[in-house]
Each structure stands twice: as structure tokens, then as C-alpha cells.
């Protein structure tokens, strides 16, 4: 099962690449924010998979929960900032 998890981790890292492309190239700032959010979601799953790989699930679950909260907060903060600025 461990090698399967490792494979999934690698696959998710590969899936981060398109988002990274969008975060670097993305025509507008808000595109970049969205891409960063998507990378955050994938990272959340990778963190839990790492917990399974290192056999310290409880610890990594706590970390990924904080990661989920901060990811949500970051998206909201960006949205709020753009709304107050009024332009992108």
C-alpha cells in the first residue's frame, strides 16, 4: 500500500505543475490567486499521504487541518483585498 501512496503523491506533485504554470503565467493577478488556492488543495492531500507514509497519521492530520483553514483564509483575504481596491 505504501508504494501506492507514494505513487499518488508523485502524481499529485505532477498535477501541481499545470497550476504552477497558471500561477506564473496567469494573465491577471486573480488567476494567480486561484492557481495558488488549487495548489493548496493538492498539498492538503499530499500532507495526509505523507502522514500515512511516515506512519504518523494523527500528527499530519492536525497539520493538514490547519493548512485547510489557512488556505480558506488566504482566498477570502485576496477576494476582500481585490473588492476593496476595486480593480485588478
Amino acid at each position: 500500500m505504501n508504494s501506492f501512496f507514494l505513487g499518488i503523491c508523485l502524481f499529485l506533485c505532477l498535477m501541481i505543475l499545470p497550476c504552477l504554470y497558471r500561477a506564473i503565467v496567469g494573465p491577471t493577478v486573480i488567476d494567480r490567486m486561484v492557481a495558488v488556492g488549487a495548489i493548496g488543495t493538492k498539498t492538503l492531500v499530499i500532507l495526509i499521504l505523507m502522514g500515512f507514509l511516515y506512519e504518523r497519521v494523527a500528527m499530519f492530520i492536525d497539520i493538514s487541518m490547519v493548512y485547510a483553514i489557512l488556505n480558506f483564509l488566504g482566498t477570502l483575504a485576496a477576494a476582500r483585498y481585490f473588492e476593496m481596491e476595486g480593480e485588478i
Partner: protein
Amino acid sequence: MNIADAIAVFFICLGCFFFMTGAIGILRFPDFYTRMHATGKSDTLAVLLCLCGLAIHHGLCLDSFKLLLIAVFVFFANPTGTHSICRAAFRCGVKPWTKKENTP
């Protein structure tokens, strides 16, 4: 490999498939709003599926419930984040891509 693990592998693979569609959608779709379709929908379901699969693999214990808790959090937080950032773009006047203008 017992039956629970088989179900878990199936769920996780399905989740990875939806992660892939989301990533390709981000890469391919023409404008901001359509890209939000890709991230907002696929990532939510993909996280849900992956975490459920991992919870099934882990068996019935407290950590599995915590995994489901994260899934529930993402299930509510992700559409809200999608909405809020789309709203910001809408209010800032980001022009949507339309079929008429871009295809003859």
C-alpha cells in the same frame, strides 16, 4: 489486499482523476470564470474522494473521523472561497470570455 483496501484504492484513484481534470481545466480554459469552474468543482469532489478513501483504508478509529472532518470543512469552504473570489472579480469588472467574440 482486502476489500476495504480495494474500495480505498478505487476512491483515491477516482479522486486523482478529478484532480487531473481540474488541473487540465486550469491550464486549458480561456478565462478566469471558466477556470473557476475547473477548480471549484473538481477540487472539492477530489478532496472528498481522496479523504474518504484514506479514511476507509485507515479503518474505524478517531483519525478517520478527523479525516472526514477535514473533508466536511473543504466541502463547505471550497465553494465559499470560489464564490467570494468570483464575486471580487465580478465587481472589479473582469470581462468574461464569450463564444460570439472569440469564434467566427
